[in-house]
Each structure stands twice: as structure tokens, then as C-alpha cells.
């Protein structure tokens, strides 16, 4: 009797001593990222990688981070499954094509958390997230309008709702800026759009930007992940606006402003929620108000008063006042799409397949 109780006590003590340090410390959260391309791609994946670095800085020893580059659709399921089997607590899929493979893996590993960027499917342990880039587009357009650019050429990516929304927001901002700045303009044609039909295509980005410049457009709006259309504009002496990451950092010195994905704070938020056990799957779509986006520093040639006006509008976004798609808004044919005072719903925005008045160009099928 006595022997067994001593034995039990000593086992208990042993277990306690071994596990006590683990209690004292917070559990280290293992986080994995599947990336679309290489971390130095100057665009989408660089933006994600900047977020990863931010996460490591903020959380330090509390996280253990791993990532895999060039995870294309054909390999995505293997990469996710591998991380899940290794016991990663949170797995991020950072591009659209990761959605379905992730969903499949998430169902087999119900105790781990999955987060997917830019899609629309969720599950009990899988959430998705995205940034309201159109807010930043609106600001960039507003700045261009205030400065009097009335014949912008946009090198757009894929003809799907996300870029279409961006083009519309940019054009609405541009029109607002032109009006406030008292500039004369043609209300039918302030922003001409050409399509890459790809997310990145450095050769065509350059060619299309050069074509737009030779047709006399006064500002190039880069929308691809890579800064090549801005670089082409700089070479020809035409200003440009960067997209996704700060194009000026990659040699496009003529860039007036870049709109930047800012994923870091969201990564930190998810890790903290998982640590605290409060994480719930949701379709998270936020903008400046949640710090999901930032703007680069202005180019010195942007007048101070323009900068101040843009920053004042930015402040409104930060406080959650998002009035980009408030009517009256007309489409290219002049039909009233949004009645005065009404606002487009998120569902309308996510399925947007029409262009606002002021955009020249069509949505190819």
C-alpha cells in the first residue's frame, strides 16, 4: 500500500516537474505558409513575405515559422498535407488556387487552423481573408485627379471582379479629384484599361505600358504584381502609380505613390487568437480600418496640399468610413447602377463585372 502510494506520488511529482516549465511558457505556435512564387518576386509573394517577417518580429519566440515557395495548384495539396502532418497549428494558403486543396486537407485535420487568402470558401477550421484594395485604389485615383491627370492608362491584370473593382474605385477617385481640383476633363474617358490576362507577365507589362504611353496617356497605373509597367513608364519619362508593394523600392523612381498589401497585422491577429483559443473561421475582408493596407511615401513631386487631402481621406478610411461605392454611380453606357445615397453591398463588390463611367475599354471574356 505504502509502496504504491509513494510510487504514485513520485510519478506525479516527476510529471509535474517535467511539464511545469511548459506551463510557465506560452505554447509555441507553429505557423506555415504556402507561397505562390519566390519571396523576392517584387510583388504578391514579397508582400506576403513582408507579412511573415512582421509576424516574426512581433511574436519572436512565440512562433515557429516555416514557408514553401512556388506552391502551384498541382502541388498545393501535398504541401498543406505535409505541414498538417507535421503538426503545424496554423497553415496559410496565400493565393486563390490554394482554396480547394486546402479545403480538402482541412477536413482531414480538424484540430488545426487553416487560413486562405482571396477565396470564398470556409469550413469549421478554415477561414479566409483579403484586403479591401479598392480603398487604396480610390486614394491613388484621388491623388492623380487632384494633380490633374485626366488621361490615365491602366495595365490591368485578369478580367475578374477583384481588378475590376480596383479599376472602378480608381476611376471614381480620379473623377472626384479632377472635380475638386477644378480640372477640365472628358467624363467618358479618364482612365483607359488594357488587359494582361495574367497576374504577372513582365514582357507584356512593358509592352502594354509603352503602347499606352505612345498613345499619349499621361499617367500609367500599374496593377500587376511586378513593377515592370511602372519601370517602363519611368524610362519614357511618364509618371506611374505602383501596386501591391512599393514600386519605388524596385527602381521605379517616377512612381508617385504605391498601394501596398499589409498582411502582417492579420497574421499576428490570427496567431494571437489561436494562442488564446478564441479563433473562429470567418470571411475576413478589411481595409485601412484594420491596417490591412498601407500607402508608400509620396513622390517629392506630389504637392503638399494634395498629400494632405489624400491623407485626410485616408484618415476617414482608418476610422471605418468607406464611401467609395456610394451612389450615384453610372456604368459605361450611362445607366444608373447605384442610386444616390445607396451603397453597394459586399456581395455586389465581390461579383462586380461592370465598369463605371469614365473607364475606356471593355471586360474581355
Amino acid at each position, binding site marked *: 500500500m505504502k509502496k504504491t502510494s509513494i510510487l504514485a506520488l513520485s510519478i506525479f511529482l516527476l510529471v509535474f516537474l517535467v511539464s511545469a516549465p511548459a506551463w510557465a511558457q506560452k505554447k509555441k505556435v507553429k505557423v*506555415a505558409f504556402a507561397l505562390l512564387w*519566390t519571396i523576392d518576386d517584387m510583388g504578391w509573394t514579397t508582400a506576403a513575405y513582408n507579412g511573415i517577417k512582421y509576424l516574426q518580429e512581433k511574436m519572436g519566440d512565440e512562433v515557429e515559422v*516555416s*514557408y*514553401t*515557395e*512556388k506552391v*502551384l*495548384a*498541382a*502541388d498545393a*495539396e*501535398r*504541401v498543406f*498535407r*505535409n*505541414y498538417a*502532418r507535421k503538426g503545424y497549428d496554423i497553415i496559410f494558403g496565400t493565393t*486563390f*488556387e490554394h482554396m*480547394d486543396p486546402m479545403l480538402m486537407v482541412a477536413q482531414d485535420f480538424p484540430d488545426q487552423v487553416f487560413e486562405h487568402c482571396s*477565396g*470564398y470558401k470556409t469550413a469549421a477550421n478554415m477561414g479566409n481573408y483579403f484586403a479591401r484594395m479598392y480603398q487604396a485604389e480610390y486614394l491613388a485615383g484621388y491623388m492623380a485627379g487632384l494633380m490633374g491627370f485626366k488621361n490615365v492608362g491602366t495595365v490591368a491584370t*485578369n*478580367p*475578374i*471582379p477583384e481588378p*475590376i473593382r480596383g479599376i472602378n474605385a480608381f476611376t471614381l477617385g480620379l473623377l472626384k479629384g479632377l472635380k475638386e481640383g477644378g480640372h477640365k476633363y472628358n467624363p467618358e474617358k479618364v482612365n483607359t484599361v488594357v488587359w494582361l*490576362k495574367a497576374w504577372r507577365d513582365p514582357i507584356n507589362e512593358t509592352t502594354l505600358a509603352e503602347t499606352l504611353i505612345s498613345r499619349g496617356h499621361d499617367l500609367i497605373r500599374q496593377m500587376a504584381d511586378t513593377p515592370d509597367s511602372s519601370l517602363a513608364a519611368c524610362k519614357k519619362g511618364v509618371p506611374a502609380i505602383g501596386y501591391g508593394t512599393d514600386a519605388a523600392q524596385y527602381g521605379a523612381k517616377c512612381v508617385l505613390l504605391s498601394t501596398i498589401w499589409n498582411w502582417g497585422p492579420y497574421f499576428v491577429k490570427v496567431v494571437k487568437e489561436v494562442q488564446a483559443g478564441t479563433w473562429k473561421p470567418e470571411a475576413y475582408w478589411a481595409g485601412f480600418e484594420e491596417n490591412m493596407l498601407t500607402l508608400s511615401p509620396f513622390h517629392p513631386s506630389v504637392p503638399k496640399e494634395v498629400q494632405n487631402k489624400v491623407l485626410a481621406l485616408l484618415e476617414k478610411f482608418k476610422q471605418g468610413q468607406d464611401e467609395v461605392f456610394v451612389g450615384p454611380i453610372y456604368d459605361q453606357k450611362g445607366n444608373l447602377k447605384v442610386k444616390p445615397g445607396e451603397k453597394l453591398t459586399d456581395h455586389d463588390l*465581390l*461579383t*462586380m*463585372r461592370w465598369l463605371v463611367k469614365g473607364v475606356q475599354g471593355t471586360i474581355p*471574356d
Partner: protein
Amino acid sequence: MLILRPRNISLTKKISIFFFLVLSSFLIFALILFFLKKNPLLIYKTIFFTPFYDFYSFSEVIVKSTPLILTGFSVLIAIRIGLWNIGVEGQLVLGAIFSSIFSLYFTKYFPSSTHLFFALFFSLVGGALWSFFPIILKLKWKINEIISSLLLNYVAIILMEHLYFGPLRDPMGFGFPGTAIFPQSVWLPRLWHTRISIALFIVLALILLFYFFLKKTPTGYKIKVIGENPKAAQYAHFKQKKLLLAMFLLSGAMAGLAGGEEVLGIHRRLQQGLAIGYGYDGIIAAFLAQKNPLLLPLVSIFLSILKVGAEEVQSVFHLSASFTQVLEGFILLAFLMAKTFSEFKLTRVKTVKN
């Protein structure tokens, strides 16, 4: 100056040349890793041991190698009769498109037990159709099949993009490119709780069949003669055109099957990220297998170990994703050299000055 002279050496010598050169490519690469301040031994260990860590890990290598075996098989079939099919990538895409269209729109007209069969069958048809154009151009007007089949790759990819951006786009997909998910009845069944699908066994059976077809049948013999000595074939009055046509269509059909296997087994929809170069990797696999269909699965598995192992290296050692491609290039070069030196000898000849 240095010239190459033909020579005959024993098999053991050939094999030792091969191992020496492949080993040296690993040594050179190790040097690069060393300068990057990474431990090459640890990295090689990770590449070559992780796939054998457990059955699941190895199953992933098999999964990765399945399309590669098929595209390699496709290239190899054409090579055996003396043709170069560089259009495997495009034929793969067409196979995937045909499979997808059937899976999305026509399954309702057939009983569900036949869906998978038809979906795979149409991938064969799609691939064969895309290989029909280059071979008919070759047979009718002697247009080089290397060029025409290569150029058709780009046409196929643009066609596919048009389809999933346009008419085939998932109506419920928020405008994202890509078709809807296929009905479950066309998904390739997966085995043993891994992602290995029955496609693997179909592929291996086809390869065995082809091997015995070449070896045991008169037609197989004719094919070998045409491939290795077209003049002799002409002299023997073989019906060359028919066989060239049939073999090239078969080659295309196998490429198409690779596409079908990818969409039905891995993606389960048609979307971006299908045409990622399996067609071109197939050329490498066929070349490394030295036209021998039985070696093809082994070579493909070796290449897949490199690819899958490299992913592990990436996530553990934070090496760039491009580094496997460098290693692959080294190994291929070493192999080329080994092949050359086992047939030729490098000799120094004195040049006589006048």
C-alpha cells in the same frame, strides 16, 4: 586539338563512368551549398531520405511521378518510331479540356458507373486530336513535327485559359477563373488513405503492354526498324505512313491521359496551374530512360524524389525554390556527358601546321 573518337567499352565501365559523373555533379553542387553556408550533407540527406520516411511520404513521390511517367511515355512512344513529340504539354492540356467538358456537362446522360471511364476516354481523344495536326502536316507536306507540335502548345494553353475565364467559368465562383468542381463520380479513386490513384496502375499496365507489343509482335518489330533505320524500312516496303500516324496519335493520347489524370485525380476542376511543364519534363524523363519504357517509372520516381525532397529542403533550410532546378540541370548534364563518354573517347590530336 581535342576530338571525340568512337569506342567500345564494357558495361561495367559504362556504369562506372555514369556514377562517377553523376556523383561529381552532386559534389559540385555541394560546393555551391557550402559557399551558401548550408550543410550539403544534411541537405542531401533531407532530399533523399524524407521520401522514405514513411509510406505516406513515399506515396506523395508516386503521386508526383504519375503524370511524369505518362508524359515521358508519350515522348518515348514517338521517339521509338523516330518522331519528336514536343507538343506533349499542349496535348496534356487538350486531354484535360476534353475530360473537363465531359465531366461538367455530359455526365448526366450516362449512368454514374461509366462516368470515370468516359472522362478518361475523352482525355485520350483530346490528346490524340491535338497530336493529329502536327503528324498530318508532317505526312502530307513534310512540315517538321518538332516545330508544329511545339507551337500548338501555346495555342492549347490560350484555348484553355479562354475556356476557364469565359464559357466554362464556375457560375458560383465569384468571377474567379476556373470551372466548378467536377461531380464526385469522375474523381479518380484514391487508394490506401494516400493520394495515389488507380491511374498509376493504368499507366503501368499500358507501359508493360507497350513493352511486349514492341518486343513480341511483328508490328512492334516494324516500328523499331522504322525508328532506327528508316531507309531499311523503306527498302522492306513497310507501310510507314500508317504506322507513323498511329504511333503519333498514341503518343498524343498518352499525353492527353496525363491531363485527364491531373484534372480528375488532383485538381478535380480545370483551373490555373495545370500546364506547369510536365510535357517538357517528359522529354527529360524519356531521354534519361534511354527509350526503354520499363526504365521510365524508375526515372520518373527519381525526378519526383528531387522535386518533393526539395520542397522539404525549402521549408527546413529556407533555400530558394529554384535550387532543385539547378540540381536537376547538373544531373542532366552529367548524364549527357556520361552517355557521350561511354560511346566516345576524348583524344588529343596534333594539328599539323603548314
